[in-house]
């Protein structure tokens, strides 16, 4: 954002958040995660490590709370009186929600995190100065900071040959987070451009969605009405924008919800309620 730009479009920027970030989107990538068939098997998380050059931090640093898993499977137990958790555990994959009205964006002093025309929360590593304000302001706590020079000991020879050249390895003092596998999107766009056609659903997907053995994760462009994900969003009556409109309660089949929707951050990930058979 150049100074001139700001001065000219001041009102535009002022209205930014409440209008949900950008005004002219080319795409708005989004996700739908069905918690009913998410088994918590960690395939997505490991795929993310493989795709995005995530550092393995080791036991001590993991203990210190400095792990770098962009995608983590959170496990919660019910607060129950009984002796046993008869309903099983509650598992949820938590990753950057790529909020439309992201709280991390306005606070970054150097605009290293900003909203792209694709509806993504970009994190420009080489612009980041590591003030860590963005992470403090993230209700989901899904931003990870390079507290150490992880790259020095995370990939001993020849492990480093696995590193993905399509995105950089982050050094100490840089904030990083899930990018919805932007490098895959970028490649898909290049291919589409090469073939002189618009980007279409199924051209690309994130590493986690690709790996998920139960297809619990569906990724796509929510602006493309024919994409799988936007169909799901429509089916479960989740709409873009600050706060989701009230669902009509008659139809219980509607299981869609967005975490922390009440905070008005317009997340790009819709979760589907976990179904449990209470008759048994």
């Amino acid at each position, binding site marked *: 954002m150049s100074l001139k730009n700001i001065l000219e479009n001041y009102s535009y920027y002022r209205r930014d958040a409440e209008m949900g970030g950008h005004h002219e989107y080319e795409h708005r990538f989004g996700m739908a995660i069905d918690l009913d068939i998410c088994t918590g098997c960690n395939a997505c998380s490991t795929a993310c490590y493989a795709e995005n050059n995530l550092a393995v931090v080791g036991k001590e640093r993991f203990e210190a709370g400095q792990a770098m898993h962009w995608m983590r499977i959170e496990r919660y137990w019910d607060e129950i009186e009984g002796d046993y958790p008869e309903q099983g555990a509650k598992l949820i994959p938590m990753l950057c929600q790529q909020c439309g009205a992201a709280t991390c964006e306005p606070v970054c002093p150097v605009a290293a995190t*900003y909203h792209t025309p694709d509806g*993504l929360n*970009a994190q420009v590593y080489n612009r980041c100065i590591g003030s860590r304000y963005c992470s403090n302001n993230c209700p989901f706590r899904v931003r990870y900071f390079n507290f150490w020079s992880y790259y020095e000991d995370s990939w001993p020879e020849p492990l480093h040959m696995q590193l993905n050249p399509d995105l*950089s390895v982050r050094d100490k003092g840089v904030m990083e987070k899930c990018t919805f596998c932007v490098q895959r999107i970028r490649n898909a766009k*290049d291919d589409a*451009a090469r073939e002189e056609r618009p980007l279409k659903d199924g051209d690309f997907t994130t590493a986690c969605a690709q790996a998920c053995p139960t297809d619990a994760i569906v990724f796509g462009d929510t602006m493309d009405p024919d994409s799988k994900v936007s169909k799901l969003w429509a089916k479960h009556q989740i709409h873009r924008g600050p706060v989701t409109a009230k669902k009509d309660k008659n139809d219980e089949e509607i299981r869609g919800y967005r975490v922390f929707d009440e905070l008005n951050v317009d997340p790009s990930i819709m979760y589907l309620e976990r179904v449990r058979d209470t008759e048994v």
Partner: protein
Amino acid sequence: MIKIVTLKQLVSMSLLALAVLLLPATSFAELPVPSHITPPVGEHDGEDVPQPIDFPHNRHVKDMKINCMYCHTYARRSKVAGIPPTSKCMGCHKMIATDKPRIQKLTEYWEKGESPRWKKVHDVPDYVHFTHEKHIRKFVFDADFPVEDVQQVCALCHGEVREMTVAEKEKPLNMGFCQRCHQANGGPGDCWACHK
């Protein structure tokens, strides 16, 4: 007594001077800038990089009139322009100029079955996502720019390679350089278009 310069001497001398003045002008004529591109501003004084073989670009480009993309063949297909595979060099130099020491050196490599380890001259940081393909497509193919003159486009970022033996970095290739060109020629302004 005063020595008088004859008209003949005068004329010949001035002609000589004129020739001396014009000589560089003729030999160092700038490459024409393609009309559809606003060239990015910026200069860089590159140092000479010792290469395993001092490959004479000028011979190939200027004298032999070989198209850049004949050797750097990946430029139109990929992120990287690519160093020509040794097999490509040998394609010609099995026959041509086999007596030259440089070619003999190349042939040694070929017979050993390895490629020369060239030193990188033009480079961008690892956090930059630059693809030759898109630039070639925009400035050459989509603009119906004659492919035989492609070196005019290449020169915008790689400088007058046709005047060099081994490549030298003539343009800064820093963010400002890219930025200016993107603004002038309507390239993307989105950070994530180029940063990864």
